């Protein structure tokens, strides 16, 4: 996954060294202070997505990110899987809503080990070339290799699958009846898991909520008295646990266009909003040249538009971003 800037819209990434990860006295794996103001951030799953988040180089804890998608493709779901996989690998408690138990088997496999230095480049395409020859490394093994220094983000390969030990991911099923409030089950279980985690480790749970994977849950989004307040407890929960919880949500825009008030309120409640618009698929496009690492300059697959960014928009800074091209491999 990589994003390439088309217009200038945001401050660029700052170079990071592992020394910043050692600033906090008890480093939680996968969490590091933001280069801008030091608040704890966790990876949003892929480096380009981290770089998109207004210089914080990650999703600030206590904030939520909404990924909207035009069309019937599911690139947002892929981003969600990266996010979840990162959480699993870091040992965070991951709560997935709206995906069946099989979803855990679809997480991308881990590739590469150890620390990873973020390099400063002029463009935002920063993903180091993935080497498909390496097989997936089991989670247990990856954990022991990361004693020091802690890695913030790992490389993933979608063609591989992550082996996930049970218990690291919790699934919350979403009921399909149009009347019940889906969040009525999510919030209590979220609160419960937050309350019963041991205090010395404090792993932050990730929470990908993807109604797109369950098309029949959409009727529950329809009546505003149900869905808008349902998102509120999420917002207040995020704020009351500002160092422990982060969330990523997806929304299909073809079913709920941005021109409706309901979607606009959901966007108001989430802290960051990205809109993906995949280009129509063209069959006659030439396959990229054989050299690994060079192929990503061609074949843009869609546009990313940034509508709102965590922390930055609340401060008052401009939230909109120019359209950016993104590639997907």
């Amino acid at each position, binding site marked *: 996954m990589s994003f390439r800037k088309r*217009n*200038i*819209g945001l401050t660029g990434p700052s170079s990071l060294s592992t020394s910043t990860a050692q600033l906090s006295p008890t480093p939680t794996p996968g969490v590091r202070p933001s280069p*801008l103001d030091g608040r704890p951030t966790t990876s949003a799953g892929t480096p380009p997505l981290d770089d998109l988040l207004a*210089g914080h180089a990650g999703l600030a804890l206590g904030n939520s990110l909404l990924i909207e998608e035009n069309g019937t493709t599911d690139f947002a779901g892929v981003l969600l899987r990266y996010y979840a996989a990162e959480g699993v690998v870091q040992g965070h408690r991951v709560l997935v809503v709206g995906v069946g138990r099989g979803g855990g088997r679809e997480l991308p496999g881990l590739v590469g080990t150890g620390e990873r230095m973020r390099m400063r480049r002029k463009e935002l395409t920063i993903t180091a070339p993935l080497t498909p020859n390496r097989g997936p490394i089991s989670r247990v093994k990856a954990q022991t290799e990361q004693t020091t220094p802690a890695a913030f983000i790992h490389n993933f390969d979608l063609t591989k699958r992550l082996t996930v030990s049970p218990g690291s991911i919790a699934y919350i099923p979403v009921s399909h009846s149009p009347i019940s409030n889906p969040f009525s089950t999510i919030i209590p279980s979220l609160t419960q898991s937050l309350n019963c985690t041991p205090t010395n480790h404090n792993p932050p749970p990730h929470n990908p909520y993807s109604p797109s994977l369950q098309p029949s849950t959409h009727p529950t989004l329809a*009546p*505003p*008295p149900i869905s*808008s*307040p349902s998102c*509120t*407890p999420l*917002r*207040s929960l995020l*704020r*009351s646990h*500002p160092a422990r919880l982060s969330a990523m949500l997806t929304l299909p825009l073809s079913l709920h266009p*941005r*021109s*409706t*008030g*309901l*979607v*606009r*309120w959901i*966007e*108001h*409640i989430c802290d960051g*909003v990205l809109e993906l618009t995949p280009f129509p698929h063209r069959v006659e496009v030439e396959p990229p040249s054989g050299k690994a690492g060079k192929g990503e300059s061609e074949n843009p697959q869609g546009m990313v538009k940034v*509508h*709102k960014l965590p922390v930055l*928009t*609340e*401060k*008052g*800074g*401009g*939230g*909109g*971003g*120019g359209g950016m091209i993104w590639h997907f491999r």
Partner: protein
Amino acid sequence: MPSQPPIPPLLSPYLSIAPFASLTLLTSTLGASTNWLVLRFIYSALKDTIYEKDGSTKEHTEDTMVVLVSWLRDGNFWKEGGRKLGTNFQKIQIVDALSTGFGLGAGGLAEAETEILKAIATAREATKENGEARVLLVLDGLDFLLAATGCVTLEIMDLVGAVRDHVHSTILTSSADLPLTQSPTTPLEISHTAFVMGMAHQARIIMSVRGLDTGVARDVSGVLRMCRGAGAGDEADEGEGEVEEREYLYLVGADGGVRVFERGA
């Protein structure tokens, strides 16, 4: 320490204490928020000096307290922002409706109203020894309460009317995004439009922030438009000062400092 003065000079005439029983409406959009504006209103209200239009200053004669009620941002957010400006938090009553969910639960709007009135009474009590305190009420995200509870617009407007009676002046924030105000079709859109326009009819001044019309720029965060509201006619008798209609550009820095400037400047 922000590099800009806490109150941008061009903005100061608009931040002076509003006349008695007036309403100031601040509107925002998805990409442009009014938090920085609210913080500056509060900071200005609690300062000892009032900024006059001609640049001179005079002392506050009355003690001012602020009651801040927010349904979208928690108390820590406001405290952090206010601290950077140097706001005196002793004089602010914060009702954190986001964390406590006032109005969203079973208590409904009546619960929210009770809590707000309680906070106003507490603010009044706090300065009893100095005499009657002037209370400035700030309602942030009230339109969210409307969306979340799905109540009738009239009920929310009655709530605003009821709490306005107890304070010196009120500041209200609301979103004014396109989906919420254009061609309203769903009940949510209709009630939101009715709420915003209804408040605009009562407001003395309407300050709207929005993103740049032409896209994104590195040196401009958005556009700030100040208009005379329909309620402006009320104090023409008292000569409290006209509202001058303007449109400015503003830039919010990474440190939270704000610069307000004219177009082409």
